[in-house]
């Protein structure tokens, strides 16, 4: 039976393992025929939506991997607006609104409020959280 998941990522790449574990779970869920309603980035997790990460070439590029996965499976990726603005993650709309020198949000991630998390929880069979470890 096909079920629906909402995944919440609160740990940043290159600080925590959270984006890696979440991607492993997400791929397995899709492979098993389940739906992922949306992926919600919260707290330090918003850094996963950065367009400007340039990790060493022998390390996995987690923002890139996540972008590709979301695009391929047409899964919405949403960064919490309050978390994102505090931590310096902005799209062009927010760049203009706050008169910032540039934008750095990676497609297909979007910026929206916690309502997206509430809605995802209601619509999904399970909502899983991927936090930073120690």
């Amino acid at each position, binding site marked *: 039976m096909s*079920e629906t998941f909402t995944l919440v990522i609160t740990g940043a790449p290159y600080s925590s393992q959270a984006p890696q*574990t979440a991607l492993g779970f997400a791929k397995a869920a899709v492979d098993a025929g*389940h739906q992922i309603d949306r992926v919600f980035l919260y707290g330090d997790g918003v850094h996963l939506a950065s367009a400007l990460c340039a990790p060493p070439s022998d390390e996995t590029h987690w923002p890139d991997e996540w972008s590709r996965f979301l695009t391929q499976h047409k899964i919405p990726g949403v960064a919490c607006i309050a978390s994102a603005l505090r931590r310096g993650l902005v799209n062009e709309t927010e760049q203009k609104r706050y008169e910032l020198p540039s934008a750095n949000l990676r497609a297909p991630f979007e910026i929206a409020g916690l309502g997206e998390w509430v809605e995802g929880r209601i619509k999904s069979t399970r909502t899983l*959280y*991927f*936090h930073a470890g120690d």
Partner: protein
Amino acid sequence: MTDIQTLHILNKSPDHPRAARCVEMMSAEDGLLLTGNGVLLLARGNLLPGASKVFALIPDVEARGLGDLSGNVSSVDFAEMVTLSLQAQRVISW
């Protein structure tokens, strides 16, 4: 696999206060899934919850060189983690 009331997913090392809290708040009907640094609980056998089912995510176990320590802990891959999360009545990520 069998029925699980609450699946507790723990990714903190045994020294993290949330690890102790997680084990404290488990009932005998619950399951414990160790991921990330959480798998280090396998190296601290005396801290494992006695009454509950314990699972550990294979890639995290192997990364930390704990392949031989599993004992009566079940190794699971991501596909089984998905299944577990649906079988349980609820999931708490610590």
